[in-house]
């Protein structure tokens, strides 16, 4: 994560608290807040930001710290690595937005129906900075994928988000609604298919069923097509590319620390 992005978020946190109310906060922490510049220009200065200036960034060190280094494995099923996201412009859910419009999969509008797990009332202003709101937002700024024959994990650096899918034929019958849902994985050729049920969205009373198809490209990027079940049919939601970023390194990100620094959450 770049220092620029962190500063961007910190500045955004303050602005949101003061001007936008409860649901402006998560909006700044969502993927929709990042721009292409943030992604293309992601520098390694996070090291300096994290260490209070004690450690200076050096790109060569970062390269040495990569999971596998570059180039990516040629095994189409070896998804291990570090990525960041790109939303496909113009695709379903990825179409250009008007200024000020909500990001696809972004937080629900204020005043959404209260009640239960999906209620926005579950979170206060402070918690809103660091809680999960929905499923689509889980494709966060920097993502580490770790995979073995039994499971696949998606570790999103921002706000220590984790998605976890096990290679299995059936869902956990005891699974309860959650923002990450219950995920099972299978291979369709060299495409990883992840089927996720029980997906909760804050402000939405029922749960969703998503299917994602993830295919590794020759350049190491991963193309993701995301579908959501609607009236018994899988409808395309969006296309996302996870870009192979061997120059990045997963960094511990504790949103709760940022929150306190801005007078929210625990005081």
């Amino acid at each position, binding site marked *: 994560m770049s220092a620029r992005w962190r500063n961007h978020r910190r500045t955004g946190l303050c602005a949101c608290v003061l001007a936008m109310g409860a649901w402006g906060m998560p909006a700044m922490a969502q993927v929709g807040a990042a721009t292409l510049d943030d992604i293309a220009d992601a520098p390694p200065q996070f090291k300096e930001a994290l260490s209070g200036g004690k*450690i200076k960034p050096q790109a060569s060190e970062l390269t040495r*710290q990569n999971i596998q280094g570059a180039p990516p494995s040629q095994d189409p099923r070896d998804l291990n690595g570090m990525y960041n996201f790109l939303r496909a412009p113009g695709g379903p859910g990825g179409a250009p937005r008007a200024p000020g419009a909500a990001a696809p999969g972004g937080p629900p509008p204020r005043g959404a129906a209260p009640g239960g797990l999906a209620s926005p009332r579950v979170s206060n202003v402070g918690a809103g900075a*660091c809680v999960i709101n929905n499923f689509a937002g889980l494709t966060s700024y920097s993502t580490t994928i770790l995979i*073995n024959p039994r499971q696949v994990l998606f570790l999103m650096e921002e706000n220590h988000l984790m998605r976890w899918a096990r290679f299995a034929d059936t869902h956990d019958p005891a699974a309860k609604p*959650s923002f990450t849902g219950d995920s099972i994985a299978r291979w369709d050729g060299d495409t990883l298919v992840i089927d996720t049920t029980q997906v909760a969205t804050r402000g939405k009373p029922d749960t969703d069923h998503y299917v994602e198809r993830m295919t590794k490209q020759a350049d190491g990027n991963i193309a993701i097509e995301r579908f959501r079940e609607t009236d018994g049919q899988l409808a395309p939601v969006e296309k996302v590319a996870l870009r192979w970023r061997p120059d990045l390194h997963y960094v511990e990100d504790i949103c709760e620390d940022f929150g306190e620094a801005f007078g929210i959450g625990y005081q």
Partner: protein
Amino acid sequence: MMAKGMMMALVTTGALIGAAAPAAALSGQDWIEGVWQARGDGTLKPADGKPIPFKPVAAMAWNAQKAAFVAGDPKVDFSRRCKPPGEPRLMSDPRTPFAVIVTKPRVLFAYQWNRLVRMIEMEAPREVIGPVYFGQNAGHWEGEVLVVDVQALHPNTGLDRTGLPHGEKARLTERFRSLGARQMEATITIDDPATYTAPWTARVVFDRQPGLTVKEDICLDRENLAGKLKQ
């Protein structure tokens, strides 16, 4: 109290529920994969039965805040403010089972508690980035024993649920080995000249918990529901 908070997490989120899990120990270095739960009371003590070799100043500081820490005062125990408790505290607390996942580049300890992940990097030693809550974890295999070198521990963390202190240059060496299909042992050697007069080693035994898996937990939601956050 930390324990109380963790128990609340287990209760309010549906906690650890039944799901498919390996019934038998896995072969080779994969033996460690699965869900584990520590035995004991979550405190670290020297395995040789001797007193903890505190430096006098460190002992005074620990004794001064130990009661508040154990009672869950968020002014001294930052995990009560939803920040990571750190290691080896989190893994050695029997109230926080964790899943271990083995991949080639990383070994992960995944906790339900606020979705925390400890990432052990199975790579050559490298420059420290820190301090961070889980420390910098450099792991390697010695046969089927997982050895982890931990440094750069965050000052907000304690080594165990009593707030056992550590300095900024503390270095931990953890050795995880199988005790058969259903048990695992971790020996944790704490080398922290600023806090202790000599390195000392604690031992924690874990039970495999087939049929458990780790579910989503959002600490700030939980605390908000409990009325602990300002509105």
